[in-house]
């Protein structure tokens, strides 16, 4: 009897169940001629591309695609999924990322046929529901941020940053300014300087003072007519509210600069304070961080940009607007703003994400959205206090929705680094916090529990962090350096992966 070799196709087993054994790549499960779908009973006749396409468009070699059955395909991804940590599985205190739970009703809304089975090229007359949905989402987003108009085209937060910077550039050109510099605090997200550079501007960094806030005396020194704008996050990446924000905005406006609000931390102030009231001119918000849509990887993303009335003519288009017809009825149409910087995405952006965000806004209502921020801030402060006996928090005694602890003294005493603590937390069944960011805190551990975790979960998380600190204290760094031991894979060689990355699959033979 012929033996079938395991590596010549998928094998529907996973042993042990959550898997310590390596899962092959989808290409390694491939077996020639196998397929996950068949058009046998549809009555569609296969066409031969060689008879129907110009020769120049034909491939020289067949495309290398994995050939697997549906059964093997589902088995492969289910095994991988079962080894993955996710927001559906448990707490995810990855600071700065706001990994809040994604409610299932929003998935239901996004998968409604009336929304998901519409082609983006359908005429406006046939897609009035979609136009209304985007117009409503724009209205609510502007209400929350204190802005006048918004675009939902940017595909994610960083794309929103670039969009905002292009708007700053277009505005400065219109007013006849040649200003080319953008100010960024030293605690900013790494995307800020990257977006500034990509947008064709130069970065000017301002340091934080001993409170962890923008140093206004240092800010005054860099302000001149060459300043096109300033990018800020408020609360900032240390989880602290920039209490001098109104003064800072006035100083930047004084020299002709615009204020850009990086909405990464909007979850802390939802329904409490508004970037527009703080003096900002442009706001991007990451829908996944604030309005509970799936985070990157589970996305796609959406990073809408909202602006003041003055800047609305520069927004990307088309955008929806309400018009009253001759019959007195309101309809919606697409229009392109008069000084538009142009499209930043095909069609209208990742709109099913917008549908999820709108569902979340409507579900919570304005009072519920304020409660989201209240609980997010309360949870972060509770956790900060609960672990304060073992972990220092260098800046401030009151945080917003997240805080940055430091493992510097633990490292000094025991040799255990922030990375060892983060890896040990994986072993305790929680996702790790963000480590080594922001750069202004040594051995940083950035924790953001979000509003969706219960007091019991917060207690368990605090207990796990205290247990890890006490192991370091009593037994030194060695037991932590071995962690994690209870995950499907143990500690990965991150440096090796960065030094010698293997970026795509190649069959061994080639």
């Amino acid at each position: 009897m012929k033996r079938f070799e395991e590596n010549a196709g998928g094998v529907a087993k996973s042993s042990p169940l959550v898997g310590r054994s390596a899962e092959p790549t989808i290409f390694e499960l491939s077996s020639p001629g196998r397929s996950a779908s068949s058009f046998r009973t549809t009555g569609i006749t296969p066409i031969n591309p060689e008879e129907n396409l110009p020769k120049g468009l034909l491939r020289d070699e067949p495309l290398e695609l994995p050939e697997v059955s549906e059964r093997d395909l589902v088995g492969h991804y289910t095994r991988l999924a079962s080894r993955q940590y996710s927001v559906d599985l448990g707490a995810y205190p990855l600071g700065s990322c706001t990994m809040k739970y994604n409610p299932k009703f929003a998935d239901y809304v996004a998968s409604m046929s009336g929304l998901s089975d519409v082609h983006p090229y359908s005429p406006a007359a046939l897609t009035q529901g979609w136009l209304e949905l985007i117009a409503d989402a724009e209205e609510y987003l502007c209400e929350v941020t204190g802005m006048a108009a918004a675009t939902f085209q940017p595909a994610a937060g960083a794309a929103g940053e670039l969009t905002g910077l292009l708007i700053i550039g277009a505005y400065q050109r219109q007013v006849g300014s040649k200003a080319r510099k953008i100010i960024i605090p030293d605690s900013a997200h790494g995307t800020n300087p990257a977006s500034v550079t990509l947008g064709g501007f130069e970065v000017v960094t301002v340091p934080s003072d001993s409170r962890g806030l923008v140093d206004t005396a240092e800010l005054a020194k860099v302000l001149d007519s060459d300043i096109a704008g300033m990018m800020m996050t408020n609360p900032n990446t240390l989880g602290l509210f920039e209490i001098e924000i109104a003064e800072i905005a006035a100083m930047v406006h004084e020299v002709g600069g615009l204020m850009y609000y990086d909405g990464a931390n909007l979850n802390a102030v939802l329904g409490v304070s508004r970037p527009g009231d703080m003096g900002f001119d442009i706001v991007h918000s990451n829908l996944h961080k604030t309005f509970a849509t799936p985070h990157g990887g589970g996305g796609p993303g959406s990073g809408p940009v909202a602006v003041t009335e003055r800047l609305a003519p520069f927004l990307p288009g088309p955008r929806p607007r309400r018009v009253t017809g001759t019959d007195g009825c309101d309809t919606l149409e697409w229009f392109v703003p008069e000084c538009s910087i142009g499209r930043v995405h095909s069609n209208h952006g990742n709109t099913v994400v917008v549908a999820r965000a709108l569902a979340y806004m409507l579900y919570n209502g304005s009072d519920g959205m304020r409660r989201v921020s209240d609980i997010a801030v309360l949870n972060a402060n509770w956790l900060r206090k609960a672990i304060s006996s073992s972990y220092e928090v260098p800046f401030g005694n009151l945080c917003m929705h997240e805080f940055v602890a430091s493992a510097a003294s633990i490292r000094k005493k025991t040799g255990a680094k922030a990375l060892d603590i983060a890896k040990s937390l994986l072993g305790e069944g929680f996702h790790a916090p963000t480590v080594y960011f922001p750069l202004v805190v040594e051995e940083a551990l950035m924790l953001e529990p979000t509003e969706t975790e219960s007091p019991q979960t917060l207690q368990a998380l605090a207990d796990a962090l205290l247990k890890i600190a006490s192991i370091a204290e009593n037994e030194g760094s060695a037991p932590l350096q071995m962690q994690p031991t209870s995950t499907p894979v143990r500690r990965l060689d991150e440096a090796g992966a960065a030094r010698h990355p293997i970026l795509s699959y190649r069959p061994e033979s080639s």
Partner: protein
Amino acid sequence: MELPSELRYTKDHEWVSIEGNHAKVGITDYAQDALGDIVFVQLPTLDGSVSAGESFAEVESTKSVSDIYAPVPGRVIEINSELVDSPELLNTSPYERGWICVLEMSDPAAAGELLTADSYLGLIS
């Protein structure tokens, strides 16, 4: 922590070895320890002229990306190409095999402003 006394240092955690009007540059043991595993080095441009304090190279670790600043003004006459494939030399041998470049100083007097091992130690402790 290793801190050879014959070298000179900067507040930005670079070491400088002066020989005549040549200055060999690298990052200190303290810097490599703080950065963690270094995974990529952007070397200075060969033959490029730099002023003191100018960012002229970059090191990337698993934690962050950091600028390397020219400690003295001059022209880059040699770069350590070994770092392209083996950036880990900055971790394993910061003062020997992990050197970054050699500058031909345009103003050798500028070297007088560099820190001694003792004053650098005072800065980091």
